[in-house]
């Protein structure tokens, strides 16, 4: 297996004397995989994710990206090679949509023409009208803003994209649409994606592999179908399953008189 992201015995500790947020987690992600990191709040999934682009520095353990240790080059150079999408969206309010999308290429010193062409392509890719390029972020809806954030993460043609609750703040319809759209992009562009979510259903529907974290440790790791049946992940998936069953029952019996 061609591992593109490797976490080896990674621990994260915030401040001296604190309990580890991540306790000796080991995880290997193959090129092209779509991995969902799931778990309850405080399980350490976001901390683990952020060690990949060094937004969080591990207290111990090693993180390798594309075969090299992440500490072997400056953090900003690493981050320019990894797309990042998060719930906070974080579009720069003082820049146009175009400038937001082109920020990493600009930092990398791409020529202007190349950036213009890239911005236009990306708008098609995330299904936004070209006219939006010259708008300010605040003129867009929540879903549109998150599409721009995805375009920004993909702008410098990264091979790896990490996502932290990327669709968490969106309404269910938009969330479903955007999730499916991203999954299609992942396949089309041959990306490797790590996505943190607390929503087991979303994880099961989008990811090819689910890693379950609980109390700072990885407790389960496998394909959605096998994992749902396994005891370690029961808690995570019980709610999702019960909701699905109730929905199914409702559609069978029809509305109450």
């Amino acid at each position: 297996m061609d591992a593109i992201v490797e976490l080896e015995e990674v621990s994260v500790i915030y401040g001296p004397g604190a309990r580890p947020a991540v306790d000796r987690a080991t995880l290997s992600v193959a090129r092209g995989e779509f991995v969902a990191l799931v778990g309850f709040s405080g399980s350490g999934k976001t901390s683990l994710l952020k060690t990949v682009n060094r937004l969080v520095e591990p207290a111990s353990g090693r993180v390798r990206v594309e075969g090299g240790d992440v500490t072997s080059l400056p953090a900003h150079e690493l981050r320019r090679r990894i797309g990042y999408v998060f719930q906070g969206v974080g579009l720069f309010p003082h820049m146009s949509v175009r400038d937001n999308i082109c920020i990493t290429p600009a930092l990398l010193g791409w020529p202007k023409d190349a950036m213009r062409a890239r911005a236009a392509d990306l708008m098609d890719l995330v299904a936004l009208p070209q006219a939006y390029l010259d708008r300010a972020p605040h003129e867009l809806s929540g879903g549109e803003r998150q599409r721009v954030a995805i375009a920004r993460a993909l702008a410098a043609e990264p091979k790896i994209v990490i996502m932290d609750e990327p669709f968490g703040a969106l309404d269910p319809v938009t969330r479903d649409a955007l999730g499916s759209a991203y999954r299609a992009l992942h396949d089309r562009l041959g990306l490797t994606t790590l996505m943190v979510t607390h929503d087991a259903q979303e994880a099961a529907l989008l990811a090819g592999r689910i890693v379950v974290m609980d109390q700072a440790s990885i407790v389960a790791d496998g394909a959605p179908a096998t994992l749902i049946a396994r005891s370690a992940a029961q808690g995570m998936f019980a709610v999702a399953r019960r909701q699905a069953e109730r929905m199914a029952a409702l559609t069978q019996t029809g509305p109450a008189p």
Partner: protein
Amino acid sequence: MNAQFAAALAVLPEYLGAHVLLSLAAIALGAAASLPLGVLAARNGRLRGPVLAFASLAQTIPALALVALFYPLLLALSGLTREAFGFATPALGFLPALLALALYAMLPILRNTVAGLDGVDPAILEAADAVGMTATQKLWRVQLPLAAPVVMAGLRTAMVWTIGGATLATPVGQTSLGNYIFSGLQTENWVSVLFGCFASAALALIADQLLGLIERGAARRDGRRIALGAGAFAAAALAALAPLGAHATGAYVIGAKNFSEQYILADLIARELRAHGLASARREGLGSAVVYRALAADDIDAYVDYSGTIWTNVMKRADNPPREKMLDEMKAWLAAHDRVTLFGALGFENAYAFAMKKSRAQQLHVATLDDLSRAAPDLVLGADLEFLSRPEWTAAQKAYALRFRDARAFNPTFMYRALVDGSVDVISAFSSDGRILADDLVTLADPRGALPHYDAILLLAPRRAGDQKLRSALEPLIGAIDLDRMRRANLEVDRDKDKLTPAEAAARLADGAGLAKR
């Protein structure tokens, strides 16, 4: 048009130019110091407390005191540079005012820079890191642009404060719109005071609006607004610089303390110089302690002081020799110690003198301090705020065994009112005060010579010691002004009705004394 208003309008370009230049320079310096400091403080928690505390502390010092405090500081620095590099940095005028105002401008800029940087949404900072910005790129591309509106608000506050505060530059010898206010307060010329207040308020409003224009331009990324605002500031600075260049070329700088007589005498000196084809500039409203040191440091070229002041304050002498001996000794001492030239006495004294209403003096048969000594136990003395703690009072008390029924201290204006309405019988007056004429008072003779002499003397700066053109221009002033003429001129400026400007009073004084006619 009102004569006082016309006179105020005539000097507006000079005052306004100096004011604009000082304010802009102070804001620029203040911003240049506090922006980087604000960025550092926002990044470094340990630095933040001390930096903000320092700026707040500077703010709590009254602006006037802050300006004044920089003078001795710069004087010491000037001494150091003279020893180290052979030239003295100016201690008076532009520099102390600039430093004090810049310090004053720092707090709002600093505080808003920190607040602005703190206020940036953490999600945006995380995004900036995640897209691969270095710390410097994050600062310039994200943090500063997003903090800019808050920083700008601080800058606008600082601008308004600085333009208001720049009026306080006058007492350290920096021309500003404050010249209207300070000279107006001294000569009770309310037109001048109001003119200065309105001019500085209008200037502050205009500058604030221009900054607002730049701010809106920046927010809407509208280059035209930014250019318009910035262009207006640049034009103002250029316009302010233009007369300065013309001024700086070899004009004689005449100093004046902060009361009417000094303004009149400075105008009189300027007239004499003009009559001899010499250009002059003015440093008015200087503090009594500041003006002599400014002369000794060549910051000003000539001014009129009073022999008793120099004798006690500069020479630190406590004895009271006869007039001629005092002037001779003083001339030698000043030349030896500070290379200052005592050019001569103008002919009148502005000394402490005891004054009474003429009618009351005649009724009590009091003409001298000896007579007063006899009548004093039944009389009430009115004094100005410092007289009762001055050596003159001690000396007079001792020489004449003066014991009054009561002694009260007043603000000078109220002291004269109290004498006129009979609440007090005798006052401590200044012998050349115009109110002695106006209120029909007499000053009492001092046969035992207890009160020191305060001859008006013309002093020249070290660098002008051998200046024959200046000397021959000033020669006619020596001995030309008697006490009565000076009192009249002071009265013309100080009175409430038919007030003259100091320049007009100086013109009349020159006519009366047979001096040059322009």
